[in-house]
């Protein structure tokens, strides 16, 4: 009787244990940021104190310091501005390209699509050295426009790939009908195709924006002044203040910057994954 009960509930208990273990292990660094954000310095830096408990009352000092004494808000602003510009450039270039490729029938359309997808695999660490020269020659060094110029080369390929999928699912007859009614091909695209593809376009917007917030190598290479940093580089490089104990405000910055991006990305994750899997799931 007991064994039967165990056999029945055994897998379930195992599953709960697996989930509990991975959830704790994967989310732990963020939980740890949360704890450090609200701990007083004396509490953080007393080795004997139990680090899981608030041995002294929680404090808002680190957050106050972060928002008033550092360039944190400036970095968030830079990142948002770059994000908006990169999204605009990406849409401007990727929308027509994806539409054309989706309507390009036959093997060549498919091949060109896959070739564009493959350029997404080229990592920043392969190109950052020559690009640093290019950026310097264009006079964009240390300016946020250096990354505004370069990031679309990372967002456009995957965006074309995602949008192609959306456009292919729209029947061609729809545009033909609109064109019979007197619209140009461009007019038909703007008036008929774009409105139906809003969710696909939104996916691309979120993809491009979150990529801007996550990129590290280019931003680190091209931009040196503290006030022109993107948030992902500014925090690890400029919030570390010599020998002074800085972990409270550093952890607060990580948490405050990560969570909104994480929530945004999470909402659209399933669509990105569908793109990543190159159609290996039907």
């Amino acid at each position, binding site marked *: 009787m007991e064994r039967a009960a165990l056999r029945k509930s055994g897998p379930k208990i195992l599953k709960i244990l697996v989930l509990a273990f991975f959830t704790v292990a994967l989310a732990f660094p963020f939980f740890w940021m949360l704890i450090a954000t609200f701990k007083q310095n004396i509490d953080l830096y007393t080795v004997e104190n139990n680090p899981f408990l608030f041995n002294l009352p929680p404090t808002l000092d680190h957050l106050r310091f972060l928002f008033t004494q550092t360039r944190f808000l400036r970095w968030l602003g830079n990142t948002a501005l770059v994000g908006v510009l990169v999204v605009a450039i990406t849409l401007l270039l990727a929308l027509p390209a994806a539409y054309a490729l989706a309507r390009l029938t036959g093997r060549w359309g498919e091949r060109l699509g896959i070739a564009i997808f493959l350029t997404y*695999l*080229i990592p920043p*660490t392969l190109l950052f050295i020559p690009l640093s020269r290019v950026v310097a020659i264009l006079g964009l060094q240390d300016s946020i426009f250096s990354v505004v110029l370069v990031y679309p080369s990372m967002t456009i390929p995957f965006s074309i790939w995602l949008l192609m999928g959306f456009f292919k699912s729209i029947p061609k007859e729809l545009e033909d009908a609109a064109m019979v009614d007197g619209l140009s091909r461009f007019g038909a695209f703007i008036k008929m195709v774009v409105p139906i593809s809003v969710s696909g376009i939104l996916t691309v917007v979120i993809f491009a924006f979150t990529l801007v*917030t996550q990129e590290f190598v280019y931003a680190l290479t091209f931009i040196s002044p503290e006030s022109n940093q993107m948030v992902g*580089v500014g925090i690890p490089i400029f919030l570390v203040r010599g020998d002074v104990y800085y972990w409270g405000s550093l952890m607060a910055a990580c948490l405050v910057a990560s969570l909104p991006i994480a*929530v945004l990305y999470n909402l659209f994750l399933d669509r990105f994954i569908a793109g990543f899997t190159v159609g290996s799931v039907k």
Partner: protein
Amino acid sequence: MFAPSVLYIALLIGVPFILAVLYAFSDARIGSTGFHYVGLENFRSILHSPSFRKALRNSIVFTLCAQAIVIVCSNILSIALEKPFRGRGFIRFLILLPWVAPVSLGTIGWKWILDSIYSVITWVLVALHLYKPYSAPMWLGEPHLAMASVILVHCWRLIPFSTVIMLAGRSAIPREIPEAAAIDGAGFWRTLFQINIPMMTPILSVAVLFGIIFTFTDMTVVYILTAGGPFDSTQTLPSLAFATGIAGSDLAAGAAISLFLVPVLVAVAYLMLRIAHRTEVT
């Protein structure tokens, strides 16, 4: 209509790539505009440098170890997450945090967890009487532990990504097949190895190929966690390319080092194409 995109990508990916190759055969340095062909000189000198050999070895070791751990863990985790349960959305969000939050910020969280004095891991080990106070190892200060830490952070970041890809693959298996197998008396392991894994091979390979690219070409984790140290023990090709090419102003040698990423990228691109092609045919 795809001409502007193709042009943009050609100018910002194609041209820098050609420049990278040219630099690798030149004596280009930051601050000098001179450009002389020096043949294989850069390659000869980096192949003789112990740092380079360590970096090459580490890049390979980190990638292989991380991928092996990631495949096993994400497989287990995707099985546990497959069936709906209460609170699954929230658990999924927590599990995905390492992937959806900016990697540079998550890595700082780990830097605090692995701190030389205030590490929570050290505190737990001391509390369990496994180490005497102040005698626990410095996680990022000893070569082998630092290497293990880098692998750990890579796994932490990639398990969520790989898990969602596998969930997508699992949901694509027609329900009738495992059910039929169960009726025929196949147990859990048999179903796993003879049905689920073979049917998921294409998507499993996509997850692995992306994982290889993300680990092999990553610089962010190493740069923030250890900056390649102690004694180059965690240096990888991208981080050495940065240290040489940008921090050390030797663009030519940096470019030559980063070119060693290309064979792996080409191999991965080739395999991706094969997967895309195969799923297209069937």
